[in-house]
Structure formats: structure tokens, C-alpha cells
């Protein structure tokens, strides 16, 4: 018998499609919640995305007890403490996060404090510290990429100590993820492209890294198909609500895939680059994905070749000989990247970002070697390897 073994877990209810937001009051009531707090950021509010959420609730006679709209892009322990204080003084009993990765992570951390008590979020950092369910928690993503609505982790920066605190527990997962096409309809082209490439990377790494399993494979391939079929449609016509919904669902599916099978070197390099140069995560993913696939090629030839079917469709797959499919899959991802550059100038190389100098590549390589996701990369990555990949991604 082979040593095959896996675990798969996703208890998040997915509420997706037209008028999905209007299901929030019913879902909250089902959990006996009457005083929800909304946690979001200024950008979401300015884009007018809060109104449909608030209206959906008030129309059903459910008042929002409090709105915190000042989550910064890189959330900190201080912000979490402050929001928890407001939650308590306003006697809220549930949380709705509306936003991207930062608002969602912040809301997860706030939920720990208001459920477990205390003001010191650092005390709950680590894996498996939480032992019981938290307060009712809903997530309304406003980007289609991070998949944070279905991941059991949150990362919060401790500014004074200069460390990023990781929190891992299945209790961080929301009760429901609400995916409504209205929420991503106005996302600007370059963010649409970058976040979609993040989702593409989640699915591709989930499918080719060491912890892949049959269930996450199903989510990953379906996500890749949806992104391939719909990303350029949305770039052509940003108001295409159907294609927007497809992308948002793909992001959630890719999130389910990678939270169960993890990611690899693209993310190790991306996390390091993000930490050092504050480049958007999705952009880093788009940059590194083809080069890391090339580096991993001989370890992932079979699964990568299979992905051609989902990237380019059955005709292209059938027309490509079996031993050329992996290369064709990489070519397809490169082509997508180049097309996105034409649409919105999404940088194709590190040099094009204008934020990194060539003599700084070593710093990225060294930091990437300490990233947890490197454990799941199918090839054992040495410092030399990481440097070589970065050189190729440079220009």
C-alpha cells in the first residue's frame, strides 16, 4: 500500500450569487445574533460597497450596532485591541468583515479577543491555542483573490516588537462566506488582475505541491478553469457581473484548495518580497509563478501537464502531446501574464515593478528560505536555487 494520506476540512457555508448579501440577516438570526459589528476599510466605504450590506440588514429589521471602517492595509495588534474595545462598549454580538485580506484577518483576530477575553492578542498567537468556537462571524470579500474567507489563519503585525504574529485555528473560519457580484464589480483593473493571479497561484500551487490531495485537486482545477474562462472577459468588460461572480467563486474555491494542501515557493518568494518592498501580494504571485513552475518542472511534470486542460481547454490539451503539456501549461500562464500587462501594465518582471534593485535579490532569497510555505514545495530549495529563480524573474 502507498503512504497516501490526507486531511481535508472546510466547514464554511458558502452563500454565493445574485442578492447573496440579502441572506445575511437570516443567517445572523439563525445564530441568535442581533447586534453585528462591521469591520472594513476606508477604500471599501469610499467605493460605496458598505451601503448594500447595511441596507440588506436594515431592510430586514436588523440594525448594524457598529461600523469600524479604518482597518489599515497592514493591520496591527493595536488596531485589533481598539476594535475589540468598541465591540465591547457597543455590546455587539457578532462580526461581519467586509473587505480584502487585511480587513478579514483583522476581523478574525478581533473575534479571538471578544470571544476569549483580554486585550493581548499576542497571547493567542500560534497554532491550536483556541479550544472552542468564537462569536458568529461572516465574511463578505471585496476582492477576488486572497481566499481568506475560507482559510483558518490570520497574520497581524506587532509594530512595537517588529514581528508578524500568526494565528492558526479552525475556529477562525467564518460561519459563512457571502459572495455577491456587486462587491467586486467596481474593483479597478490592476487589482482585479493581481488578485486573480493570486487565486490562480493558490490553485496551481495547491495542485502541484507536496500536500495535494484528491479533494483539494477538484477545487483547484475548477478554480483554474473559471479564472482562465473569465479573467480576460472581466478585463474587457469590468461591469460583467456574471464573469465577476465566476472570478469571486474561483477565488473561494482556490482558497479551499490551498488551505487544505498548502502552497509552495511562489508564496515563499512572494511573502519575502512583500515584507521587504511592500509590493502587493497578487502582483508578486503573477511575477514569480512561471519561473517557479519552470524551476519545479521535473518534479511536477505530470500534474502541471494536466493543468493544461483547465488553462487552455480540451482542444488545446488534446492537440498537445503528453510530454509537452507541462511546458505548454507554463507557456499559457506566461501568455496570460503578458496579456494582463497589455490591459493594465501589471508588471511582468521584478525590474518592471520599479520597487526592487538587482542587488537586493539576495535579501529576498534569504528571507524566502525562512518562509513556512517552502516546506511544501516539491523541490528542496537551497539558497542558490532561490537566487537563480529570482535572477530569472528579474528581467
Amino acid at each position: 500500500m502507498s503512504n497516501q494520506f490526507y486531511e481535508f476540512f472546510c466547514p464554511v457555508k458558502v452563500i454565493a450569487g445574485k442578492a447573496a448579501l440579502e441572506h445575511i440577516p437570516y443567517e445572523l438570526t439563525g445564530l441568535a445574533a442581533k447586534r453585528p459589528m462591521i469591520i472594513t476599510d476606508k477604500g471599501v466605504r469610499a467605493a460605496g460597497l458598505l451601503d448594500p450590506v447595511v441596507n440588506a440588514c436594515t431592510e430586514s429589521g436588523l440594525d448594524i450596532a457598529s461600523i469600524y471602517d479604518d482597518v489599515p492595509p497592514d493591520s496591527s495588534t493595536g488596531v485589533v485591541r481598539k476594535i475589540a474595545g468598541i465591540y465591547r462598549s457597543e455590546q455587539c454580538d457578532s462580526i461581519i468583515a467586509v473587505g480584502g485580506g487585511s480587513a478579514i484577518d483583522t476581523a478574525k483576530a478581533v473575534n479571538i479577543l471578544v470571544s476569549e477575553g483580554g486585550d493581548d492578542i499576542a497571547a493567542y498567537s500560534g497554532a491550536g491555542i483556541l479550544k472552542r468556537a468564537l462569536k458568529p462571524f461572516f465574511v463578505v470579500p471585496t476582492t477576488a483573490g486572497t481566499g481568506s474567507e475560507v482559510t483558518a489563519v490570520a497574520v497581524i503585525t506587532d509594530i512595537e516588537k517588529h514581528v508578524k504574529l500568526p494565528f492558526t485555528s479552525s475556529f477562525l473560519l467564518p460561519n459563512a462566506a457571502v459572495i455577491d457580484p456587486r462587491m467586486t464589480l467596481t474593483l479597478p483593473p490592476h487589482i482585479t488582475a493581481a488578485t486573480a493571479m493570486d487565486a490562480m497561484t493558490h490553485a496551481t500551487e495547491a495542485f502541484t505541491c507536496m500536500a495535494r490531495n484528491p479533494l483539494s485537486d477538484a477545487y483547484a482545477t475548477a478554480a483554474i478553469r473559471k479564472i482562465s474562462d473569465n479573467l480576460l472577459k472581466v478585463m474587457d468588460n469590468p461591469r460583467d457581473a456574471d464573469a465577476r461572480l465566476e472570478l469571486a467563486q474561483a477565488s473561494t474555491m482556490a482558497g479551499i484548495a490551498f488551505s487544505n494542501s498548502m502552497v509552495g515557493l511562489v508564496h515563499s518568494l512572494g511573502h519575502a518580497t512583500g515584507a521587504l518592498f511592500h509590493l502587493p501580494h497578487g502582483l508578486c504571485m503573477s511575477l514569480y509563478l512561471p519561473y517557479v513552475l519552470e524551476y519545479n518542472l521535473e518534479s511536477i511534470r505530470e500534474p502541471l501537464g494536466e493543468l493544461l486542460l483547465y488553462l487552455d481547454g480540451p482542444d488545446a490539451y488534446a492537440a498537445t502531446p503528453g510530454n509537452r503539456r507541462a511546458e505548454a501549461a507554463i507557456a499559457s500562464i506566461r501568455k496570460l501574464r503578458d496579456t494582463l500587462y497589455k490591459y493594465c501594465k501589471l508588471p511582468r518582471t521584478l525590474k518592471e515593478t520599479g520597487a526592487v534593485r538587482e542587488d537586493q535579490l539576495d535579501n529576498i532569497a534569504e528571507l524566502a528560505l525562512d518562509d513556512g510555505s517552502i516546506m511544501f514545495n516539491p523541490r528542496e530549495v537551497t539558497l542558490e536555487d532561490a537566487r537563480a529563480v529570482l535572477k530569472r524573474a528579474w528581467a
Partner: protein
Amino acid sequence: MLAERIQPMAYQARRIYVELMFKVLGSAFQAASEIDPEIQQEGKALPTGLLFEMKVIPDGPRMIVEHLGNGRFLSHGNNPPRPVDLSIQFKHIAHAFLVLSFQEKTSVAYAHDRMLVDGDIGYGVRMTRILNRLEAFILPKMIASRAVKQYPANLDLPEKLLTASRIYLKVATKFLKW
């Protein structure tokens, strides 16, 4: 208790084997860190005084090493002098046995959710790379390539250091046939 009486001998053997292999790993850790530049390089980034353990939860066999600085490590056997800073934990003795008998690579064991890291993940990643290299030292190449993702190209250590570990290993592999 009845459960104890009917417990097959193999369980006992598996436990002894895991204890023995932890002992081998601990002393190899110390010895190799004294002469291998790669391990020293990898270890240097860790804080001096970092106390690392590998164990089977809840209170199975364990191995403890301390980083003395500059990539040198000291083995503390199974006795931590103070609470540990970083812990890699097997969920069950059966999982530790799979890894330490080289039937499942360390990296695969991670991927299979067999182990947990308690502490800084970055340090955990480094310690795992050192463990990979140690496995390659201790084992004959044929078995080692099963145990680690990639067999290092530049292994060359005095045979003397290796013999001691390999003798242990010979004793240990006897358990494998059970």
C-alpha cells in the same frame, strides 16, 4: 488494565526504536554541527540558546538540542534544562515511526499533517533542513534518498563520525523487520 495486557509486543518495539533513533539524531546533531559548514551556516540564523525539541505527543519519546551559537548544537538527550522554545511534534508514535524508519520523508510527513510546529515557523523550517541533512549523513545513500526530498550533492564527512551513528542504526534497523 486489559488494554495494556493485550498490547502486542510490536508496539513496545516501535517505541524503543523511536527512542533509539531520537538518541542517534541528537548525538549526530551535535557531532555534525561541529564539522559541517552547511549545518553551521543554516544554524547561524537561529538565536543563541534556542532550545529545540522533537517529540511524540502527549508524552512520548523526545529529543532535545540547544543552539550554542554560530551554528553549533549541544544534545541534551531527552532532558530539557528549561522550557523549550521550538517544538516539532508528532501526533502519534506511529507517525514518528514512519518518519524515523525512513518510510515517510520528513517533508511528506509535514504535508500529511503528521507533525505540528510549535514556535516560530521560520526556525522550524531551518531545523527541518538541518534534520534532512543529518538523515543524509547517518544513512547510506540508498535509504537517505527515500528520507529526504533531495540527497545533497556535497556530502563529505569523515567516515569516523558516521560509523558511530551507523552502528546505532544497525541495532535500530533490527526493529524494522518486526
